[in-house]
């Protein structure tokens, strides 16, 4: 993502005056785009709430939080949707969120009982490559191979940060050594996911850091089963995307209604083929068929939320040192 998008973000549309009650949801830009879940979500929720749903796109998750911090308690937002597990502790610190009242039965690989933030989808990070090519089974094998990889910068990209946390959580003190081993495999480090994935599709690298669900896009939208995600022995780092209710909301009931809707079938069924992530609650109709061919990691990794920040700063230092040489 570009810095500019973040501002895109900052100044993007807000609520307009209207008679019907209005709910303003801040989210990331790709959620509101014509190819994201936004349009379908808006239609489905407005059909049941008798209200207007304003989806305001604001860059990516980190930009979203940045905008919220700039606005503080004066924010027009009632709900913020699209923070991920790496941002939750920073979001908590703002003190802008309040507990939701939803009692959810979630289908996550991990126990979830955060009182403030409610997940709506999740996924695993993974290296994605072409079927039939060499497939290292963990980071050490990858580092020892001569496969080229393209990754994202953790300072500007969520997946990039995910990889940083993945290596740190799996290897602890040895993480720096892993990065030194990977240094000669890394073709380049891009500012965001799109650039990296574009480079991979152009044949610039054998593998790209993406999600285990990425091959599903190619199967469903392009009828192309040549892309595969590589299962890693260490387990796979998770991204859980959450929404939270703002304490200063003037529509607390409507906000709760939206959160309930968010984990209902109508919303959850939209997620797999628009956000290309796993729904937080399995829709009744199940997942599209292509999802059953995806790899299922044996082990899900996620840094504890209260330790994520400290771990991140340490891991970033190691990453910079290992790759700056």
């Amino acid at each position, binding site marked *: 993502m570009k810095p*500019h998008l973040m501002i895109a973000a900052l*100044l*993007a549309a807000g609520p307009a005056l209207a008679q019907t009650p209005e709910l303003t949801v801040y989210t990331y830009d790709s959620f509101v785009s014509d190819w994201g879940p936004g349009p379908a979500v808006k239609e489905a929720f407005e059909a049941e709430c008798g209200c207007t749903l304003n989806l305001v796109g604001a860059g990516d998750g980190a930009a979203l939080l940045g905008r919220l911090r700039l606005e503080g308690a004066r924010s027009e937002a009632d709900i913020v949707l699209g923070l991920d597990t790496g941002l939750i502790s920073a979001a908590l610190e703002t003190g802008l969120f309040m507990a939701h009242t939803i009692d959810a039965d979630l289908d996550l690989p991990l126990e979830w009982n955060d009182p403030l933030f409610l997940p709506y989808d999740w996924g695993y990070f993974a290296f994605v490559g072409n079927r039939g090519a060499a497939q290292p089974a963990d980071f050490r094998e990858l580092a020892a191979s001569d496969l080229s990889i393209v990754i994202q910068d953790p300072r500007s990209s969520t997946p990039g940060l995910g990889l940083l946390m993945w290596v740190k959580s799996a290897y602890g003190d040895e993480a720096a050594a892993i990065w030194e081993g990977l240094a000669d495999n890394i073709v*380049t*480090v891009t500012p965001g996911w799109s650039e990296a994935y574009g480079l991979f599709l152009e*044949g610039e690298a054998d593998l790209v850091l993406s999600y285990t669900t990425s091959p599903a896009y190619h199967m469903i939208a392009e009828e192309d089963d040549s892309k595969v995600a590589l299962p890693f022995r260490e387990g796979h780092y998770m991204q859980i995307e959450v929404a939270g209710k703002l304490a200063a909301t003037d529509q607390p009931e409507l906000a709760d209604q939206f959160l309930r809707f968010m984990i209902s079938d109508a919303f959850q069924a939209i997620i797999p083929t628009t956000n290309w992530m796993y729904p937080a609650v399995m829709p009744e109709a199940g997942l599209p068929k292509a999802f059953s061919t995806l790899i299922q990691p044996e082990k899900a990794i996620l840094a504890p939320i209260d330790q994520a920040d400290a771990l991140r700063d340490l891991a970033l230092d190691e990453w910079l040192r290992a790759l700056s040489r």
Partner: protein
Amino acid sequence: MAARPFPLRRAAFSDALGWVAVALVSGFILFPLLAVFWRAGGASLPGPADWSALRFTVLQSVLSAFFSIALAVPVARALARRQFAGRGLMITLLGAPFILPVIVGVLGLLAVFGRSGIVNQAMAWVGLPPVQIYGLHGVVLAHVFFNLPLATRILLQGWQSIPAERFRLAASLGFGPRDVFHLLEWPMLRATLPGVAMVVFAICLSSFAVALTLGGGPRATTVELAIYQAFRFDFDLGRAAVLAVIQIALVTLAAMLALRFSLLDGFGRGLDRIPRRWEAETWPLRLLDIVTLALVALFLMLPLGAVIWRGLAGLEGLPPPVWRAAAVSIVMALVSTVLAVGLALALAHLARRWRGIEAVGLLGIAASPLVIGTGIFLLLNPLSDPSRWAFAVTALVNAMAALPFALRVLAPALRDLEKDFGPLADSLGMRGAARLRWLILPRLRRPLGFSAGLAATLSMGDLGVIALFADPERATLPLQILRLMGAYRMDAAAGAALVLLSLSLGLFWLFDRGGRRDADA
């Protein structure tokens, strides 16, 4: 040079307009910057990583500016002294690289220089080891790709400002190429080159995606990324603002150096004949120009060809939002163009006496878009919903970004014009609207058309600026391209990029053509 070419008595109204433009441009950058400092509660100092980012940024900007102008000189000279079929098309296509969204341009470059690109396939075919594009040289290569055409076009304007009569005189005096260079071309280059270098340096200083993507890793961290990190990771607005101030200081310094080194000495006016270059009509020089043009055409057109080729495949079945966005982008570009050219004209008027004014025009590309955008947000937010201002703010930001280019073209042109025709117009008592109508607009038509074309394409294509203030209802084309890529739809994104490229070139052609209806330049 006359002692006082600009009589003081005509100063009043047009000067006032000039100062309004100065206030508008500097206010548009400085107030948001102050707002960020105010919100941060003061400055905070950059860390060691930020300083090394600064060193890398300056290094790559200096190299990029140097190579861009070093290559632009022979190319512009070849274009200036040769007539050939397809010359007009080549000049128009020269506008293409710098309007491409960065990532689209980078993918085009990679199709040529990348791991599986044309160059490496050729290397493998003759049995040589592959070349690696990722690193400092890749960053500079990409910046030259984006900026060489721009530098060439501005220099070409410089060549065209030398009256045909001078070359005729030179020929009748039996001047060889060396004499023509020393007596005609070098003085023009001394007046033009530093300014062009300064603009390229300023653009590269805030480079973000190119530097990171082709830099190969965190070694290639730029100041803009450091600002990004300060904002995202640490929410340290004070540090972000200090880094933005450093960017501005660097560009100001570069501008002062450039203005100091650019000697001004006009050529006087001619009768606007198309120059015939007797001294260059020798076979070695002809060959040199042919080789130069062929090489630069290959360097620029192969990646562009890749962009077009990829785009054609994705053009079919482009989703309707892409076409909607194209319409938004065109309107946006037109509004920004009017603003940019108006501001540039007002500033160029003042710059005849206070040359430092030209540095004001650079502010728009010197300051970090992230910091300025944040500042504008902070200023608007208490007053009104910032999204309502999205269109106006975007148009203004675009105009600011296009301003230095329009100014680079208009300032020397207006200076020469007033020097050559000012006294006559004064003696005829031609002032205000009459002067604009009968002297300035007709005589400046070519640079005006060119600068309007530049401004239009820049506002159309500069993703950085356009994406700043996106409005979900009225997304611009570059933002839609990015969204398509973010949604795995790389083919559709390539198709949309081709639409963007065609529309921008179309706009450029219309303006530029309008400016030189009468002359085959």
